[in-house]
């Protein structure tokens, strides 16, 4: 795989439906009500149910391995959390290669929705 610093990754666009929020929360065994119960989320001051952090990490991993392929080894995922990602948002991941040291590559990732940066971070991945 020919990779250079500055290379951009194909965008990943996620339609954050309520089903997506709920199914990912349960698939990550996260039963906090703000991820599946809209009434509870609104009562706690949120606009709607919203994505959980375990899913953010998983989506960032997916975004990078969709590009790097099944033989890439994900070494670490470091994310900072920004604005919430409510149901009915569209979440778009963009990224580029920011460092390269032999097979080891650092990808800078941003997941953005209509209100701002939902997640920003870096993924260190070992390419085949």
């Amino acid at each position, binding site marked *: 795989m020919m990779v250079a610093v500055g290379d951009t990754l194909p965008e990943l666009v*996620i339609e954050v439906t309520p089903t*997506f929020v709920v*199914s*990912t929360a*349960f*698939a*990550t*065994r*996260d*039963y906090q009500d703000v991820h599946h119960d809209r009434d509870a989320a609104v009562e706690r001051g949120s606009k709607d149910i919203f994505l959980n*952090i*375990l*899913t*953010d*990490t*998983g*989506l*960032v*991993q*997916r975004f990078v*391995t*969709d590009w790097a392929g*099944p*033989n890439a*080894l*994900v*070494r*670490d*995922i*470091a*994310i*900072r*959390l920004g604005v919430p990602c409510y149901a009915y948002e569209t979440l778009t991941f963009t990224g580029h290669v920011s460092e390269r040291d032999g097979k080891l590559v650092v990808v800078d990732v941003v997941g953005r929705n209509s209100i701002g940066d939902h997640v920003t971070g870096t993924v260190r991945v070992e390419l*085949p």
Partner: protein
Amino acid sequence: MIRDVADQVIARGESSRRAAPDPVNVPMVRHWVEALGDRNPIYTDPVAAAASVHGGLVAPPAMVQVWTMFGLRCTRPADDPLGAMMSVLDEAGFTSVVATNCEQTYHRYLRPGEEVTVGARLTDVVGPKRTALGDGWFVTTVSTWYVGDEPVAEMLFRVLKFRPPAEEPVGDVLRPVVSLDTEFFWAGTRVGELRIQKCLACGEVRHPPGPMCPGCGSTELTHVVADGVGEIYSYVVHHHPPMPGKRLPFVVALVELAEGVRLLAELIDADPAEVRVGLPVRVDFQRIDDELTLPVWRVRS
């Protein structure tokens, strides 16, 4: 107090290790990849996985925390360091929480059948810091996942535990009902006078004003202008429900004036925690509009 507890919990080091309820398994992986839409074949396709660098099925590294989630019925163990820190911050009024950072490092991929345990330690408590959300403390824990005694993954997790700022007042303050009996009082506040009703017949002063002297029954009434100094006789700190035009919490004080009557008004510019019975106060006037000026108390030094 917060610092002391933080130092104690940090010094305790890693909690006892908690076992995942299930070994790493393909059904949970399948649910996860289906929900997240991850089509990487190394997680669920045995043939493709066998042909990959892994030589067989592996779990998504980002699932590491999933194996040891508390689930629907579990309670946090008593030695959980984040739980301990959260309760002490809750008690100190830093009641809201937002996660700020999650950094996971994977030493290797996990395979179906592996039994995972997790231990967590508190590494850092920094604060109080002024943030866009309010004043708060950054609390950092590090969790380590093990297979046997081999660490397989680590996670740094940081939350901001913050005190939500007082809400901005909504709406206009409630207006008093002005009657023939109280008109003189509100006319007084408009010109900066605290007027107390006085009986022309027996000379008794009283508040709140009324149509007839409760002492002698006379309806011949006048008023005096109070000096406006007194001491708190009783008070309440109003936390809930929200009141139109008021920022919560606020203090309502019943003040005994030097003239011998007691009068209710808001105590302004005072820390509710420092209010006490006997606190010396003086009157001030808060102009709302042309029609209405409210008397308020200020602490008298």
